[in-house]
């Protein structure tokens, strides 16, 4: 008897709760914010790659207000941990998840398979599926402009390049700089130093100093800390910033920065998910889309050089200038791209060879 009463009470409560939640969810569903997740490989405080992605996330929040709720996880190692983090985001109701480093590719693919309703976007990768898109910035466009400016600003004809890892993205950008040198100052030599790290201020500064000891007077970098910029400032040389604006670290040294602006992409993709028009694709965005930006030029750059640089930017935007326009030879002098043709994105995406003019072997 008592037991039955208790059971009745329980079912009553359960029904009440069920009804309540049904009513609630029916009402709220329309206004519930879209949850967007971001996975970063570095700290958002790196003032480089991850910092820029986080600026994009903040832009999404600003643009959509309380229609979105964003979550980010920083300092995620590329490996088993990444899979756990991505799955956690998918499980906790995030409908759109950006994974922002090359090494997150396989974990993202795996989790995307398990959560077919969640949309995933992986930066700089090449694996696609129905609910997994990729996106990448054409940094080589900015790098080409930087290469041109460097070719005009060097007095010693020695230009330094601090490189991280020999992956296509980095090799492509080195080649873009060499293409600019080949065209605008063939006497300039490009010295490349691999530091095997994306982020190690001490080592980047050491590399910059080692280069300057050997006569380099303009430094470019494909690593994320502003340490090389500072080192150049201290010794009265020039440097080009990477990923985010580094002018405050070398007011005199800073020629320009090539910046990844992810905000337009993140806002557009979030909008698509809201509209239900999101589709998986491999997105490649450059200066024309506003994804690659050069916000300012140093006043020390002569007017004709900065005018020509602006001309190059305009040309890249409207398609009349392509950094990888033929004829292009490889290091052995073999013709890879004939005159009148350009390297396609499919070829650039996998680029694992140096163009003619680059000294040294590509590390394996």
């Amino acid at each position, binding site marked *: 008897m008592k037991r039955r009463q208790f059971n009745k009470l329980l079912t009553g409560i359960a029904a009440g709760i069920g009804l309540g939640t049904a009513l609630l969810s029916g009402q709220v569903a329309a206004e519930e914010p879209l949850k967007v997740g971001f996975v970063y490989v*570095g*700290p*958002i*405080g*790196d*003032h480089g790659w991850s*910092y820029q992605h986080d600026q994009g996330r903040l832009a999404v929040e600003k643009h959509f207000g309380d229609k979105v709720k964003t979550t980010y996880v920083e*300092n995620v190692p590329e490996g088993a941990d990444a899979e756990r983090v991505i799955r956690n985001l998918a499980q906790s109701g995030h409908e759109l998840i950006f994974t922002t480093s090359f090494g997150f590719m396989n974990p993202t693919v795996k989790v995307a398979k398990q959560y077919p309703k969640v949309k995933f976007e992986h930066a700089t990768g090449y694996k696609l599926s129905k609910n997994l898109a990729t996106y990448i910035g054409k940094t080589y466009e900015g790098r080409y402009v930087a290469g041109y400016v460097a070719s005009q600003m060097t007095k010693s004809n020695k230009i*330094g390049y601090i490189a991280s890892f020999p992956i296509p993205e980095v090799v492509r950008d080195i080649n873009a700089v060499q293409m600019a040198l080949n065209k605008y100052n063939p006497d300039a030599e490009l*010295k*490349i*130093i*691999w*530091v*095997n*790290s994306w*982020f*190690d*201020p*001490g*080592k*980047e*500064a*050491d*590399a910059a*100093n*080692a*280069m300057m*000891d*050997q006569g*380099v007077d303009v430094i470019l970098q494909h690593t994320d*800390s*502003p*340490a090389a910029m*500072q*080192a150049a400032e*201290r010794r009265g040389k020039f440097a080009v910033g990477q990923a*985010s604006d580094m002018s*405050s*670290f070398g007011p005199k040294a800073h020629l320009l920065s090539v910046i990844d602006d992810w905000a337009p992409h993140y806002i557009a993709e979030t909008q698509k998910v809201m509209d239900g028009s999101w589709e998986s694709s491999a997105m490649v965005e450059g200066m024309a889309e506003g994804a690659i930006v050069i916000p300012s030029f140093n006043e020390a750059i002569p007017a004709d050089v900065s005018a020509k640089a602006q001309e190059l930017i305009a040309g890249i935007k409207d398609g009349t200038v392509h950094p990888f326009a033929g004829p292009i030879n490889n290091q052995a002098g073999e013709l890879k791209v004939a005159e009148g043709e350009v390297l396609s994105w499919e070829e650039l995406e996998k680029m694992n060879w140096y163009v003619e003019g680059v*000294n*040294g*072997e590509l*590390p394996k």
Partner: protein
Amino acid sequence: MDIDLLSNILYAMVRTGTPLLLVALGELVCEKSGVLNLGQEGMLLMGAVVGFVAALLSGSLIIGFLLAILAGVSMSLLFGLIALGFSANQVATGLALTIFGTGLSAFIGSEFVGKPIDGLDPFALPLLSEIPLIGKMLFAQDLVVYLSFALFFAVYWFFRSSRAGLVVKAVGENPHAANAIGLPVMRTRYFAVMFGGAMAGLAGGYLSIAYTPLWAENMSAGRGWIALALVVFASWKVERVLLGAWLFGLASILHLVFQGLGFSISSNLLATLPYAATILVLVLLSRNQVRARLLAPISLGKPFHANS
């Protein structure tokens, strides 16, 4: 031209080796007293962030360095309280200190990323810095590097000629015997731990105020761990710590220099040199079990209870 390049390499070697030397000297004193503090990386980062923020806000580099040292000491006291006061496992406590320091430093520094300061500039001594080859390396550095030379000699003298040095060694070898003859075991260990913290804090300040005057999360990039390996590499001998720090410094810049010169040599391989060297030394040292045991402080890592 070539001698210039060589002199630049030696200069960079000492600069790169300085944070390692500072941390390793501190850890050496700490380990000599029988305490293994694996929290170097955490203390280093705390020193770096506090030093940078203090220098930025006060506009004074000296205040930056002083607070960096203070931050290192506070962190080491936390370690001391847990590992010495409550006799917790030193390895676990040290690891926790590193994780804690990494996180806390990121938290404190998050507002200060991307802010530049005018760092500590080198101060070349007239005449002396003009000596060919070694002049730049020894006499054209900044004040912290000169201080590291002085601290090296101080620690060397401390263990070689001072009574207090003997007390530290006795406490590290056999705390019970030391206690029995009336030596203050706990107090000695606390001081040794605090010295280690001060040195790590100073090294952190050196990184964020002099070496690369900026704050970025995790900017120590494993130097605390290299310094720990360095103490083993030096087989707990002060003079070998100096040698090792500069050698490790050289190993970490040499591959950069070689690449710039166009030698094709695997930079990955060269970057592993410090660690490979440490393993090699460990193997060499442990060939002779008796000798190996004599090198490390016998009570290293063991908690001490006065009445047990």
